């Protein structure tokens, strides 16, 4: 055997040793639980076939109020890594984890909000007179800025490589490949939305500040400042009048937004509604992270296109 082969064999032996010393792994893929479909998609992008990811919540469900099911507890029990949105997005998670793990050691936890420049981090007191729907720690919908996939996947790579050090190169390769596709995507999306930079838009829920900032859109108002509470007629009337005056052309609505309300505002103001998915799986076409932006950008550009 040539020395190079010896070296390779040594590395291989070391890998086997390390593999064996990782506690939560039975040799199969790493069990990962992500709280949202977006984080699931990103974890799969990095982990590939070496991870088995489950999303706790289907997309489009209100993440703040969750009815935990036994299956979800079982998933948390199996998990070697829990990937979460963080901030105050999943207030129920700590309780569910404690319940699922009982005396077993807690899984590794990755809070993806670390390392993200957050928006709207003001407290309610500092934003008097504006909406009550204030995220105490900042707006949590940061995955809707594709650039934020960089820090998120970096955190994922780190966490996965810590659980399976031997696979680091594999994860790194996958992440590089993902970022290559992401860069191509960002260029594509920026180009598609470039004609509409600076355009004023109205959203139904305050889920879009990151998306809007990335693509140079200007969110001027939210239709339902408090989610789930329909706006008053006075607010609706003044909003529609302002939208007309400011020539707001597009209302961004999630697929689960109140259809009658959005239609009413669109009719009153002359704006067009764009149904965008705020999460992977929110629309059938939004099957993964890149596809999410592909479909959202296409729909948004379609709504902006003058007719």
């Amino acid at each position: 055997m040539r020395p190079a082969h010896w070296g390779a064999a040594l590395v291989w032996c070391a890998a086997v040793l390390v593999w064996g010393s990782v506690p939560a792994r039975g040799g199969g893929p790493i069990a990962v639980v992500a709280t949202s479909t977006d984080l699931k998609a990103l974890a799969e992008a990095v982990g590939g076939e070496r991870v088995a990811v489950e999303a706790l919540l289907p997309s489009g469900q209100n993440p703040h109020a969750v009815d935990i099911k036994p299956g979800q507890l079982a998933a948390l029990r199996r998990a070697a890594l829990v990937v979460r949105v963080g901030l105050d997005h999943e207030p129920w998670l700590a309780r569910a984890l404690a319940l699922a793990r009982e005396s077993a050691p807690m899984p590794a936890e990755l809070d993806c909000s670390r390392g993200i420049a957050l928006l709207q981090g003001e407290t309610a007191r500092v934003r008097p007179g504006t909406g009550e729907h204030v995220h105490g720690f900042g707006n949590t919908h940061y995955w809707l800025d594709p650039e934020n996939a960089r820090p998120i996947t970096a955190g994922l790579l780190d966490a996965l490589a810590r659980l399976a050090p031997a696979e680091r190169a594999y994860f790194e390769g996958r992440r590089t490949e993902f970022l290559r596709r992401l860069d191509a995507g960002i260029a594509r999306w920026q180009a598609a939305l470039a004609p509409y930079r600076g355009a004023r838009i109205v959203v139904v829920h305050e889920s879009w500040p990151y998306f809007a900032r990335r693509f140079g859109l200007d969110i001027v108002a939210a239709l339902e400042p408090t989610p789930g509470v329909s706006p008053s007629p006075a607010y609706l009337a003044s909003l529609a009048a302002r939208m007309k005056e400011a020539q707001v052309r597009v209302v961004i609505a999630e697929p689960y937004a109140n259809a009658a309300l959005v239609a009413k505002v669109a009719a009153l103001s002359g704006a067009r509604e764009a149904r965008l998915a705020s999460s992977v799986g929110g629309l059938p076409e939004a099957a993964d992270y890149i596809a999410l932006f592909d479909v959202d950008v296409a729909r948004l550009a379609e709504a902006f296109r003058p007719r």
Partner: protein
Amino acid sequence: MLDLLWAPLLACLVLTGMHVYLGLHVLARGVIFVDLALAQVAALGVTVAFLAGHPLQSAAGYWYALAFALAGALLLSLTRVERPRIPQEAVIGVVYAVSAALALLVIDRAPQGAEHVKELLVGGILTVTPGEVIRLALLYAVIGALHVAVRRPLLEISFDPAAAAAGGRALRRWDFVFYVTFAVVVTSSVRVAGVLLVFSYLVVPAAVSALLSRSIGVRLAVGWALGAGVSACGLWASFAWDLPTGATIVASFGALMAAVALALGFAALARGGRAARLEVGVALCAAVAVAGLLLIAAPRMDHHWLDWVERGLPAVELAFLSPAERQAWYDSRDAVARGSAELKRLNTLQEDVRWGRAQLSPEQQERLRQFLAARGEITAGDRFVLETLRGRARERQRYWLGAPLVLAGAAGGLALFVRSRSLRF
């Protein structure tokens, strides 16, 4: 305003027309929650339709809902027996709970369904379209005509089932007719107005008019007038005070009910003479004594009545502060007023910039944002000073205000109680 509210107002009037009449039946039968149960069964139908691939607002969704509601109607008419071993409300409650649970189980298999089903039960009276109002009016005209045509048996089985049975009426068959029309109405109304509003239209006008008259004709007329009046008031209040529309109308119905109850209470008081007035006096004195006791026991808890008094008469609070504290109180109050006014003005400016009505350079905008944040903190600080001073005043009011209240309440209550006892014997 009018262009936004006339369609909801017409929808409310159509709802009033149908529901007040059906409400008389529901009240007479004592099946108050039947519409909640049927609405929930209809929602289950829509949920099943959603799972089968039909959008929620589609025609297919409506037919599914109707089919389920009709099945529910059949079930309800079958469970009406002559000498029931359990009240029918038990069946209605079970139907409600089980169909709500089944809807949850079904929706769990469909992504994003939960929000939609919630929306279905909440309804959106504000976003009703003229087309929907017309369809609703036509449908209810047909059902109303049917009820007029067979009013005799229908009224009899609701208001006097024993006589109807003795007269040879087929109770179950007519019951089925009633529940079928009821199911159609509920299924259609809930889509537009949501369960809370539909329930209010059904029960409140009928209940209030039943308090005022025995004649069915008078009840119907009074109920229609009340329903129309409350609808108009609720819509107006929703616009004037910037409130969600459906919830405001429901609250207006509550206010109507409370007003009628108060009026009837006063009438009873007037009729009851001195004894009744003394009893009310005892209750009021007891309330005063309890308020005083609470002030002594926990001066720092929320004493809303004292807050209101002090808002009107700041002297009540100022009398318990030292001169220096009084000066701080005046300064903070003025600062809060100034700060709030300035915040309001700058918020409007910020809003105008966002909407493109006013122009500011990005740097100016950032400075405005920072200034607003700082100003907000300062005003919050001034508010905090006022709260602290109020807390201090409360510590001193504790005995000086609390003890006299307890004494006055107890003494007054005792005196009135003795008086009422002597009156009785």
